[in-house]
């Protein structure tokens, strides 16, 4: 594999895609009213971060970004397992996926 450097504007295009995926995930997390979909949107934010990390890894010509993606995948897998088991627990308790049903936790 020949490691060639990216032009900074080409890097900016990849950063653009990563930022748009991150922002769409953020908007989805804020306005979806289904707990499963909220956590799916956080996975989409992880995808944006992964594209950004790999783009910077290619731009700098070293492997630190790609190595960090492995840890991001680890955290994403752990987060998915814990969040989904919590969602199933909350669903069994109130029979709904609406987070508004738990709004008394707001205090």
């Amino acid at each position, binding site marked *: 594999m020949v490691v060639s450097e990216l032009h900074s504007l080409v890097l900016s295009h990849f950063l653009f895609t990563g930022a748009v995926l991150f922002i769409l995930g953020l908007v989805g997390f804020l*306005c979806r009213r*289904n707990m499963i979909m909220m956590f799916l949107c956080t996975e989409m934010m992880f*995808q944006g971060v992964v594209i950004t990390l790999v783009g910077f890894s290619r731009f700098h010509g070293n492997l630190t970004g790609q190595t960090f993606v492995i840890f991001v995948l680890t955290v994403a897998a752990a987060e998915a397992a814990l969040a989904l088991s919590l969602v199933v627990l909350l669903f069994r308790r109130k029979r709904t*996926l609406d987070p508004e049903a738990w709004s008394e936790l707001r205090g």
Partner: protein
Amino acid sequence: MPYLIYIASTLAAISLYMMMPRRGFQPGKFGALLGAATLGGLWLLLAEYLPEPTDRGVGHAVMVYYYIFSAVAIISAARVVTHDRPVYAALWFVMVVLSSAGLILILGAEFIGFASVIIYGGAILVTYLFVIMLASQSGDSDERPDHDRIPREPVAAVIIGFVLLSAILTAAFPTAEENLLHPNQFSAAPADADVIAGVLTSRPVQNMSRENGALAQALAGEFEQLSNAERIGLDLFQGHPLGIELAGIILLVCLVGAVVIAKTRIDSFDPKVGADQ
């Protein structure tokens, strides 16, 4: 160029707001058209600044693949956010994962691309689909609950998101012509061959036995012939051993926590009792 980014962010925010599910009149098609036009117009305007294809950088043929994969990723992501049925939104997320794996392949990171398809598209998405199937009440389109069809505070969420997006993009795109003339002024980080060769030869663990030292020298010499996965493996295990241990601890704690949560007894399993508790 900042004004271009602000205008594009505003148009994209309006189009995403129009695509949100709502009661009554649904301008989703117009929102999708407006969003696609915004994305295409932004890319057309930016394409004038792209550098000439050289043998060092990424040429225009690769940029064509970038446009295809990136458009698929962004459109699928918008559908994930705006689709009112969770199963279809999860399937659109598979498209996001596949097309962003294509983007990662363009960047020359084969291992990360395949790993993200296997882990995200395979493992995590199947888990999400299982939970969606477990926790959905009924499959009828008319019986869908309100909380899937009506978003919560869509105006505020879209404004927050796209103000942040325009701030990020203003920083990500070079604002002056000088930045375009000096493209690689930020690439001061050392190349990976130097880093790994330095790590391999300077670690005391490696120099404890002569075989390991010789192996390190051989690997450092043959670095150019290594594949992407071998390079990531070397960088991971030589440069981040503590990180690997911490990742293992995170996974173990997560496993124990998930078992504890799954074993929690819920007394009010009856739906009629659970509704008003």
